[in-house]
């Protein structure tokens, strides 16, 4: 119920439209409620008493009423849909925005497939509820009250008798919705799981093929799909039992009218036209109740969907509450870590007591074994995660006091894995500066050594790249990422220095691009290349979340600690294999 109220909260903004919809609903039902009177009169008085003229006039009145009613129906549908669509529109936007503002740790945990299905399929489910179910709930309430009043005014004794099955009906509907609700919720969950399985399969298809594991995958999928079938059948079983039961119980009402009401007509305590009106009203009341099942179904679905949506909306957007107030002005690029510690939500400690002072324009290479906390260090700077202890300062101010957007606009990030959006090459490079002049984009692309490649594409910078367009190699993607960063021109740069999947020539191109990029910026680099490490002003070596060594390349080599160990392991091996005498370039 709380979920529904919350959902209706989104309606509030459009209360004027909602009221207008309500008025049209009332108008439509007023005409509907009058119909049995007219038909009952036409048959029970006109036809029975051989008053042909009266029958004809009432018939014509019926047509006239329906023409007016038709206009109201049309208006109602449009108004109801309009209100619902506006609401859905708001929910979609809200959800879209919220998801992109959720924290990194959230996205680390969340399954992409689930997030997508919540913001698409679940929102669609709400649409049905907000438009159709809402309309029918209101209409039904009006109809039931209207019919009750009409019947009691006609003959209270007969009304009492024919409404006797109503409480039982209500109970049945209640039991039904109790039983079917949890099953429908599992159906939706299972559907999400199945979708996730399909997604994993398609994304990992190369591995599937490489190991000739199609059969295994099909079995895995089959389990999910069969699970979905089983749940659907369970839901169907419950519905099959209860929904026709509603018709059956409601039939008692009509039976009472036929039997008891018929006897009253015979005994002249009820007129025939009243009897016919009763028959129509009581027969009609089945309708709102019959679709109660359907509405309950839709409502349950909507509640489940809404809960899943609210679950996302209730997850605190990162730093939404804690966003700072300050803009970064004339960023110098001085960065300081002051006694920084970081513990992940699951309790694992990633960094302890990091102290570091970086002058503007310096390059800091971060090294250390896997899991030593290198990535954590660079994730903290743009506040992808917030420090658990201590503080990080940029230009002397705690980064939590800056506006998040301002902070991130001043920090460029070139990560190991580059995501391309299904858009043009231009849009992909201008990602950090939408609407940047093409000239500047081209300049950035040139600096990143990707310009030549792009102009070679069928539509140059307007060529769609990414999933739906031209596929790019790892090296090309990386240079797009570098171009993005160059265009953004951030005073602070974070570089996850990866050269995966490129040949030596590309490698040298990337290296040149990187050199252009890191020039005169404060740079943090998770270094893999010796040349990069060597160019760094300082190297910090992390181990188990602590800085174990810090200094220049020479200092550290001379110190003979972890750094020199790592250095010799990686680069020593390569160098000894090089034939002597090939050093001339």
């Amino acid at each position: 119920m709380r979920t529904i109220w919350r959902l209706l909260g989104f309606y509030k903004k459009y209360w004027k439209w909602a009221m207008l919809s309500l008025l049209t609903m009332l108008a439509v039902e007023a005409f509907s409620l009058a119909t049995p009177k007219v038909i009952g009169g036409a048959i029970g008085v006109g036809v029975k008493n051989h008053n042909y003229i009266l029958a004809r006039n009432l018939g014509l009145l019926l047509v006239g009423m329906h023409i007016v009613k038709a206009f109201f129906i049309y208006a109602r549908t449009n108004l109801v849909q309009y209100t619902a669509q506006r609401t859905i529109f708001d929910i979609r936007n809200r959800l879209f925005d919220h998801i992109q503002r959720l924290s990194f740790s959230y996205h680390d945990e969340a399954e992409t497939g689930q997030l997508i299905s919540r913001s698409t399929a679940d929102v669609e489910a709400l649409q049905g509820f907000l438009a159709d179910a809402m309309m029918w709930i209101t209409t039904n309430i009006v109809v039931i009250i209207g019919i009750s009043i009409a019947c009691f005014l006609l003959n209270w004794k007969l009304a009492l008798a024919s409404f006797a099955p109503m409480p039982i009906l209500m109970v049945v509907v209640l039991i039904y919705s109790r039983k079917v609700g949890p099953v429908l919720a599992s159906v939706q969950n299972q559907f999400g799981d199945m979708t996730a399985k399909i997604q994993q399969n398609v994304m990992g298809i190369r591995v599937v093929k490489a190991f000739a594991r199609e059969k295994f995958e099909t079995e895995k999928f089959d389990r999910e799909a069969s699970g979905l079938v089983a749940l659907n059948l369970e839901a169907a079983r419950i519905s099959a039992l209860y929904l026709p039961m509603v018709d059956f119980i409601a039939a008692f009402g009509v039976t009472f009218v036929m039997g008891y009401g018929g006897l009253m007509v015979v005994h002249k305590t009820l007129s025939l036209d009243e009897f016919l009106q009763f028959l129509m009203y009581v027969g009609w009341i089945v309708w709102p109740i019959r679709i109660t099942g359907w509405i309950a179904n839709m409502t349950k679905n909507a509640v489940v969907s809404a809960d899943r949506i609210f679950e996302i909306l209730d997850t605190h957007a990162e730093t939404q509450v804690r966003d700072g107030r300050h803009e970064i002005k004339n960023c110098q690029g001085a960065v300081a870590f002051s006694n920084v510690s970081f513990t992940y939500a699951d309790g694992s400690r990633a960094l302890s007591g990091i102290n570091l002072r970086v002058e503007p324009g310096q390059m800091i290479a971060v090294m250390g074994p896997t899991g030593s906390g290198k990535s954590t260090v660079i994730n903290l700077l743009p506040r992808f995660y917030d420090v658990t202890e201590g503080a990080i300062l940029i230009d002397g101010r705690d980064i939590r006091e800056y506006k998040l957007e301002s902070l991130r606009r001043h920090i460029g990030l070139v990560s190991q894995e580059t995501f391309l959006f299904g858009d043009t090459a231009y849009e992909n490079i201008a990602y950090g500066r939408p609407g940047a002049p093409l000239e500047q984009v081209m300049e950035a692309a040139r600096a990143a050594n990707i310009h030549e490649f792009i102009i070679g594409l069928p539509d140059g910078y307007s060529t769609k790249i990414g999933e739906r367009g031209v596929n790019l190699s790892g090296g090309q993607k990386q240079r797009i990422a570098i171009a993005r960063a160059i265009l953004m021109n951030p005073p602070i740069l974070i570089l996850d220095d990866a050269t995966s999947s490129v040949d030596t020539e590309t490698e040298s191109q990337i290296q040149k691009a990187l050199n252009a990029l890191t020039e005169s910026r404060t740079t943090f680099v998770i270094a893999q290349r010796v040349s990069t490490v060597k160019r760094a002003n300082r190297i910090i070596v992390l181990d188990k979340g602590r800085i174990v060594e810090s200094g220049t390349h020479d200092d550290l080599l001379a110190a003979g600690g972890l750094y020199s160990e790592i250095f010799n392991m990686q680069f020593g091996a390569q160098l000894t294999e090089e034939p002597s005498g090939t050093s001339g370039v």
Partner: protein
Amino acid sequence: MAHQAFDDEILGKAFDARLAKKAFVFVKPHMRRVVLALVIMFLTTAANLTAPWLQQMAIDDGIMKGNTGLLVRLSVCYVLVWLFYWLTQYVQSRLVASLAQRVILSIRRTLFLHIQSQSLDFFDNREVGRIISRLTSDVGALNQFLTSASLSLVTDSLMLVGVLVLMIKMDLRLALMTFTAMPLMLIITILFRGRARLAYRDVRRKVATVTASVAENVSGVREVKSFSREEENLKRFEQINLDNRRAVMNAVRVSAVIWPMIEIIKSVAQCTVVTFGGYQVLLGALKVGMVWAFIAYIDRFFTPLQNMSQFYYTMQSAMAGAERIFEILETEPTIQDKPGAVEMPRIRGEVEFRNVTFAYGDTPILKGVSFTARAGDTIALVGPTGAGKTTIISLVARQYDITGGEILIDGVDIRDVTTHSLRSQMGVVLQDSFLFPGTVKDNLRYGRLDATDGEVEAAARSLGVHEFIAGLARSYNTEIQEGASNISTGQKQLLSFVRALLADPKILILDEATSSVDAYTEMVIQEALRKLLAGRTSFVVAHRLSTIAEADKILVIEDGRIAELGTHEELLQMDGLYRKLYDVQFSLLEETGEVVASPDGYS
């Protein structure tokens, strides 16, 4: 080819007999259920149609004649009829549901299996999200049509026919007058159908755009955040969302006309019955209860007609779904086993390329590549990006079919054997080491499902990876999250090595990923790689100097051809392309060389 619009633009005709026939294949195995459902539906409809008839008798023979005994009996009958209705409806609903679910499962299964059998080019050209929606929403739409919609069409038709027969029996002239409504309905449906169809087509397209936009933003959320694109993306999404809303409202405006129109027509029919029927009663040709029953039947006459106009939309979206599903089902995998393909015998490991050419679409990639590899050789492939190195190694596992020439393994043309027997003897390690959500152990076992825990651990130990795995939060039982986001790139690579080793392939294909790991991991990887390659024919797109230098043969690929071929020393002496490539890389390392030689010699 890459620009080819994928098939959400296919929106389908209203009814396509060819498609329906194809789709019917999925229902055919369940014909007994269908027939049973039809019989039950007949009974349900009969029960429903009895109700007004009982009321008519109650009025004409009970009330008007004052026969109270009959009135009571009819009332009891009325309840019994609805009891019967409950039972038949229960059976019917369960039957239809079980039918629907069976059909949906078999469609999904078939489609999934078919997608699995596709070659990689299929996946190269399609977005993940779209493939998913084929298996989820499109299957749903098709199923809706095949089962619930068609069955309710049957119920509606039965009801319609039943009402027609009863009306004609009661009074032919009144019946005929009512039927004049039918052409009117037809005209309205045709008038608005076309417009509504276009409008709904537009809605579908807009919804697809919304979904795609959401999916992209979720997948690329890291980029979104690091570039602070939230505002801009929301702005763009709002526009897409607005387009969607407008499309929906447009569709509503068009389709909302139909119902009120039907209401008017219904009232005209009822007016006719009351007026003319009243006249008939006057003449004594009709009874009051009959007129009443007629009015009730008119209601039951219009309800199925209204449902049928709804059916049209269900059918249309089903047809569109079917079209997309069959588009996939009818895409023959480009790589298929020849008729009479035999099992590949146990591979020794000799590989020969004979003048192999390959084109991707219209773009020639390989232009005549010939070489041989002896069993156990490590073949390193080097060369500029786009030269065709990755293509060559993909061809060995027959991930694509060559355009010309021959590839022989142990003297057997790989197109003459089944792909399953071929690939199951090969190992492939890709640059992006994809791991499935699940435990580390499950992932390692991927190539050999029956490997025991001991074997898994032994394999990890033999590559020197055990310590790495033991260091994970829950060792071999660590759950890998989607996208393996809780595992580093280096760890992913190492796991993919173990995964390959456990499958014990006779031929190993490896697209080497370098540098994205720290120095220590790099060393472990190099060691693991050396052990993995030992003793089996291996093709490596190599980036590491160590891998290249230790290879038995180096193929230098340039522009789809083998430019140079030989060992590291031979090629260096040739002073050609290899030398050049080597120097480019070496120049990056050179500074370091000096450092090691004289630690003070840099500035």
